[in-house]
């Protein structure tokens, strides 16, 4: 199985993302799968960012700490990442004499740490020093004269170097492709597929041509024939596509990282094709995307829209969600199907706005004063993110209650190549729950046997809503007996959901073994990929990926965990939040924990090592710290 890790770094705003996208698309055309992670500061231009990709002939779901090929344009990336690279480093020859101390954009703590390391291995804090160190460790160094190539391209095209400076990224992709042993035509195709502007297409093709020869093939990758289509997805786009397919008609948002890309994508695609599934007749219809003044308005506008019958949702991350909890409570009280997509980022407070985390689970479970039913689901990969976006709407409308869909930033910004058939959207079905157009008088909160009231839309009947406790008509009622019954009605819907939704659909189980691993969200990929590798080390594990936290699949989890010799909980947070839900639901506590809260995603390398440590030394709590 091919598994090559490629990393590119550079300052924010210099096109590192594009570089990784073009390169990944080229590889996809050659038949390879990709999984990549974007890492960047909360900054627009100048701070260090990087992209870490795994290239494989099988679908991948994680990144690795062991970098085969590191592509750099400037000095900071070299300093930040030289300790991770094993095989090849591309670097800009002009920078050899650069000193660490002259790099302003590097954070003080980071610079000090690197300096301390270099001192400990007796290497001067310069690019040259580092290159020497790498050479000593067997890393092959490939100098690239980016500027020279750019100048040549510029000259040929009669343009200024500044205009085409971003073609630098293409140079990096071209050399990398060659190193892997793949034909440059894939890159040409990728360039043509990605850039709209003819001038840039031409410049990039030229740059690619000139750069391709700079390395020798080393990895001997072969073209793999592809049957069917493959798509490139990130988590934001996957959710946006799921929502559109699932019939979202009103999306409100207030800009926030890493959520707003989803809304911007929906807005850019707000005119959609409505196709009659029988007659195939098609017409254009519209989605309203509303950028509000804040998240208070965002959730409440979406709730308003939902009252009229539109499938409505809002997307945000921690700070925004903190402002939404009052609205969420109103929706719970008024049995409104509204979907909140909650992108978890480095918290608390503003935290690490562009980094990842999974520390918002308990908050989302208990968000809002008082008790009301909310359904909480979490996606573990891009395909799940797509399908869960649809599932969320179905759940919301069936149980007439808010649904929170958790997606961590790692997943939102990760980039993967997947088989289009995995999306399988033509088999998805809508469940709009109990909808009525009443003839005569109508009680929005009618008591029924299954606790769910027939739901009419504003516009089709006269009805009343209030955040106060209310009677069946939706008018304020402080009567004790009504209070007891109406409160119970709401809460019982969650019990109904618990009965109706198969527990098997609320979690995924992978593999078999005496050792159980519990996780949720993006760490799923790292664990799955590590499990493959651990099998070779003779360690078999069973992965239990939790997908729905409320209602919690108590019986199945109990059954799965009973009798395991070890239960390892893997989460991107400090307090092992999912584990505490497992414990409070089932009484079973994990035996070991693998935790990470530095804002960077968990890698398969880390899982592999941590599991080994646990198997060997039974360490209770392994703290991961990978990533720059």
């Amino acid at each position: 199985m091919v598994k090559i890790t490629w990393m590119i770094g550079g300052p924010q705003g210099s096109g590192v993302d594009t570089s990784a996208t073009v390169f990944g698309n080229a590889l996809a055309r050659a038949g390879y799968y990709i999984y990549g992670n974007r890492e960047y500061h909360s900054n627009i231009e100048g701070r260090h960012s990087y992209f870490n990709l795994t290239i494989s002939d099988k679908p991948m779901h994680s990144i690795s700490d062991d970098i085969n090929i590191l592509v750099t344009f400037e000095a900071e990336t070299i300093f930040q990442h030289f300790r991770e690279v094993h095989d090849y480093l591309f670097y800009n020859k002009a920078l050899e004499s650069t000193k660490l101390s002259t790099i302003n954009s590097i954070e003080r703590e980071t610079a000090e740490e690197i300096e301390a390391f270099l001192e400990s291995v007796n290497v001067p804090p310069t690019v040259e020093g580092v290159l020497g160190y790498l050479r000593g460790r067997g890393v092959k160094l490939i100098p690239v004269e980016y500027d020279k190539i750019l100048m040549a391209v510029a000259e040929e095209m009669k343009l200024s170097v500044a205009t085409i400076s971003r073609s630098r990224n293409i140079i990096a992709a071209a050399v990398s492709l060659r190193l892997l042993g793949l034909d440059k035509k894939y890159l040409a195709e990728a360039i043509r597929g990605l850039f709209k502007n003819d001038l840039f297409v031409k410049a990039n093709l030229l740059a690619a041509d000139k750069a391709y020869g700079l390395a020798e093939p080393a990895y001997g990758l072969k073209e793999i024939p592809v049957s069917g289509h493959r798509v490139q997805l990130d988590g934001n786009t996957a959710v946006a596509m799921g929502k559109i397919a699932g019939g979202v008609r009103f999306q409100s948002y207030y800009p926030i990282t890493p959520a707003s890309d989803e809304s911007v994508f929906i807005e850019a695609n707000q005119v959609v094709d409505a196709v009659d599934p029988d007659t195939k007749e098609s017409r254009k219809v519209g989605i309203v995307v509303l950028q509000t003044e804040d998240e208070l308005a965002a959730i409440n506008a979406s709730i308003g829209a939902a009252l009229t019958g539109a499938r409505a949702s809002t997307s945000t991350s921690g700070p925004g969600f903190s402002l939404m909890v009052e609205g969420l409570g109103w929706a719970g009280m008024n049995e409104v199907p509204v979907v909140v997509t909650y992108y978890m980022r480095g918290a608390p407070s503003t935290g690490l706005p562009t980094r990842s985390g999974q520390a918002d689970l308990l908050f989302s479970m208990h968000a809002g004063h008082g008790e009301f039913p909310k359904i909480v689901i979490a996606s573990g990969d891009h395909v799940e993110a797509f399908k869960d976006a649809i599932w969320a709407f179905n759940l919301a409308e069936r149980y007439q209650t808010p649904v929170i869909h958790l997606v961590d930033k790692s997943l939102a910004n990760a980039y993967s190549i997947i088989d289009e058939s995995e999306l399988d959207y033509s088999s998805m079905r809508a469940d709009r729950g109990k909808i009525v157009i009443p003839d005569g008088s109508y009680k929005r909160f009618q008591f029924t046997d299954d606790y769910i009231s027939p739901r009419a839309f504003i516009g089709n009947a006269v009805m009343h809503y209030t955040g106060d406790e209310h009677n069946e008509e939706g008018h304020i009622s402080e009567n004790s007996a009504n209070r007891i019954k109406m409160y119970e009605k709401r809460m019982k819907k969650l019990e109904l959901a618990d009965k109706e939704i198969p527990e098997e659909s609320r979690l995924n189980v992978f593999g078999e073994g005496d050792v159980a691993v519990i996780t949720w969200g993006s760490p799923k990929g790292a664990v799955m990929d590590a499990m493959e590798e651990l099998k070779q080390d003779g360690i078999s594990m069973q992965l239990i990926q939790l997908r729905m936290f409320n209602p919690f699949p108590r019986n199945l989890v109990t059954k799965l965990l009973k009798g395991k010799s070890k239960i390892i909980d893997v989460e991107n947070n400090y307090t092992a939040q999912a584990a505490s839900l497992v414990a409070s639901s089932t009484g079973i506590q994990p035996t070991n924990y693998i935790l990470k809260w530095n804002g960077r995603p968990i890698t398969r390398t880390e899982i592999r090592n941590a599991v080994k440590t646990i198997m060997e030394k039974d360490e209770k709590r392994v703290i991961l710290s990978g990533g720059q």
Partner: protein
Amino acid sequence: MAASKIDIKLYKTQEWVDWCPGCGNFGILNAEQMALAELGLDPKRTVIVSGIGCSGKIAHFINVNGVHTLHGRAVAFATGIKLANPELEVIVNAGDGDQLGIGVGHFVSVGRRNVDITVIVHDNGVYGLTKGQAAPTLPRGVKTKALPEPNINDAINPLLLALASGYTFVARTYAYDVKHAKETIKAAITHKGLALVDVLQPCPTYNNINTKEWYDKRIYKLENWDPVVKSESEIEDKITKAYLKAREWGDKIPIGIFYQNEAVPTYEDRVEERVSTYLKNPPAKQEIDKNGRFVTSIENIVKNKRVV
């Protein structure tokens, strides 16, 4: 949505109106019910979105759709309702504390959108339902009944704020002049665009300063006053006059329509410009599935994401 005049009784619910005797809210309730009746609005397609406060309860007393929301957030709910289904007539009723205190951010921001809704402020100078604390329209130095000390904050002027925020209809009326209130509310509902109606509303229980007697002496109706902008070139003049008039307060308090401009496109018009089928087939009215099978095709979107 205008139709023929309908019996006002149809606009009354069975709920007991639990305001204090003599509360100005009764005047607003009557005026609003009369306005709805005279405009013949269909209760199914009319929505009162209210905030939290004594005023907020009005949504339970009028027999059209009633959405009694959260303190300060009525405008946000109303925006979602209106944009998802622009065929609905949407009216916001809430207190001065609600809209000009906790909700003033939404009050101002909706001005940038000119959503075609009507915003009615129950302006009583106090936080009624929480027992009489100073609301944002209470002038500094005034000591109403429940205050331990005279009010420490200056008052906000709702009309000025609305003008500065982009409202295209700005009016003031008085709860005890039910006819004037009714006509003003009718004009606001009929106005195409975002309308403010600031209603001076005595609260006999907590505001013992701005009482009926106090207002009766001061209030006068705008006369020889043409607030309507008929062409671009009139805007500057009319809005300036409105600014100046809106500052008048004290011995004489004008009521009436201060400013009206229908030339600014509503938010709905702006959406229609992007999505040409929006008004005919708005979000709320679209079928998103046929027997469970989704109708939205994402084929073109997926194609765009294809790499092979």
